[in-house]
C-alpha cells in the first residue's frame, strides 16, 4: 500500500484513498474530427508503460476528489514528484538523474 501525497490536501495518505488513472499527459485531441485512426488509437490505448521514471495520474477519490500527477520509478515504486493537474510535464530524465537512476 503506497503512501501518496496529495498536492491539494497537502498530506500523505494511504493508497487506498486514491485511484490511479494511468499515464499522465495524454491529452484528448482538441478536435477529434481532425485526427486519424492512428492518432486516436494512440490517445485511447498506446502507452509508454515505462520501466523506470514515469508520470502518471492519480485521483484523491476518497479525499478531495482532485486529479493530480505523480512521477514514480516503476521499478522501486518510489515517488519522485507530485504536481497538480494542468501543470506542465516535468523533465523526467532530469528527475531520474537526480534520483540516481
Amino acid at each position, binding site marked *: 500500500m503506497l503512501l501518496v501525497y496529495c498536492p491539494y490536501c497537502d498530506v500523505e495518505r494511504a*493508497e*487506498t484513498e486514491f485511484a490511479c488513472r494511468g499515464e499522465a499527459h495524454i491529452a484528448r485531441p482538441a478536435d477529434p474530427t481532425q485526427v486519424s485512426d492512428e492518432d486516436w488509437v494512440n490517445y*485511447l490505448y498506446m502507452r509508454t*508503460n515505462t520501466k523506470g521514471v514515469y508520470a502518471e495520474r492519480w485521483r484523491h477519490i476518497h479525499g478531495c476528489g482532485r486529479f493530480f500527477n505523480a512521477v514514480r520509478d*516503476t521499478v522501486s515504486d518510489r515517488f519522485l514528484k507530485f504536481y497538480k493537474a494542468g501543470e506542465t510535464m516535468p523533465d523526467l530524465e532530469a528527475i531520474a538523474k537526480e534520483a540516481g537512476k
Partner: protein
Amino acid sequence: MKRYSFLELAKNAFSAHQNWGRQWRAPEPKAEYDVVIVGAGGHGLATAYYLAKEHGVHSVAVIEKGWLGGGNTGRNTTIVRSNYLWEESAGLYNHAIGLWQGLSQELNYNVMYSARGVMMLAHTVHDVQVAQRHIHANRLAGVQNEWLTPEQAKEYCPPLNIEKNIRYPVMGAALQRVGGTARHDAVAWGYARGADALGVDIIQNCAVTGIRRGQNGAVEGVETAKGFIKAKKVGVVAAGHTSTIMDMAGVRMPLESFPLQALVSEPVKPAFPCVVMSNTIHAYISQSDKGELVIGAGTDQFISYSQAGGIHISNHTIDAICELFPHFRRMRMLRNWGGIVDVTPDRSPILSKTPVQGLYVNCGWGTGGFKATPGSGHVFAHTIAKDEPHKINAPFTIDRFRTGRLIDEAAAAAVAH
C-alpha cells in the same frame, strides 16, 4: 535426448543418480540464427520447441535476461481452462487444452496436467447470465463447460460454503471438467529440454539491449549483453517487459504492466479437490500436489515492475477465500509473491506480426497466460515460420485496437444495471 521413464529412474537408482545428463545445455550464442526468441518463459520456449519440431527451423536462439521460466511462468497459480466467451479466445485456449492433454508424453516430461475441473462461481443474477452465455457459446464452439446448481457445486467441491446467509451467496457455477492445473516449472523445463534436444540454443543471463533494424526497416538482429546476434526474424515473448523490448524497435504497444500477486498456504493433507474461481469477489484457489493451497490475488492499480504488490490486495483476496471456505481461516500464508502482467485494453493477447518486417510479438496475456502456453507457442511458431498467422491467432492482431475489432473478454464482466 535420453528418455525419461520409471525404468530409467530405477536404473539410475543403482548408480546413485550419478549418470543423469543435463536437461539442457548452457551454450554461448552463435553469431547468427534464423530466429531469435526474446524471453525464455513458457511461451517463448514453446515457440522455439514448435519452430524446431513442426517447422524444421532448428537455428533458433532463446535469449533470456534471467533464468528460464523465472518470470510469470514460475509465478502463476497454474490454472488451465479454455471456457472463454468469444469464439476467437475459446479457439485459442481450446487449442492449448488439446495440447495439454498429451503434453507430458509429447515432451517426455511430466508436466502434471491434472484435469481437476475449474469451477467459476456466480454470485449475482448478472453473474448467472454471464456464466450461461459462456456455456452456450462454449457448447457451440465445442468447448466443454457446464452449469452446476449450488448443491451440485458443493458436491463437486465439498469445502464450498453455499449457505444463503453469506454476503454474496453462491447462485451456481460454470464447471469445465477438462480444466485444472499443471506444474508450472515442469512446463518451462519440459519445453526447454525438448527444444534444446532439437538444437535450440537457450541463452540465459543475457539481456537484450537493442533490436537492430536495417535500411528498409526490417529486423536484422538483436543487441545483447553477449554481443550482437544476427537474425532476420525476432519473436518478442517478454510478458511484462514487452513494451520495453518493443520500444527498442520503435514500436509502441497498447500494454500496461501491473503487479499481480499470488500466495500459498502451508502444505496440508488433501482438502480441496478442484480449482474454484470467483471473478465477482476476487478469489482463485486450488491445492497443489504438495498440499499448499494456491491462491491468486488481484492486480494493483498502478503499473510496476517491482514484482511486489500491496497488502490490501492480499487482504481482499483472503477475505473472499475465507467467506467461501470459512474453515480455511485458520490456515496460514506461507509465501506471497508477485509477477508483472502485461494487460491489453480488451484483456485478450496479441499474437501477431508487427509493423516491422521480421518482428513478431506474443504478449498481453494479462493474468491468465499460463493456460495458453502450449497453444500460444504452437501458433506463434507458425506465425514466425510462415510469416503469417495461423488461423487461430489471426484475430489477435495489434491493429484490432485501431480498427475497433476488440476481443473483449472484460466485456463479459460488464457493469450490471
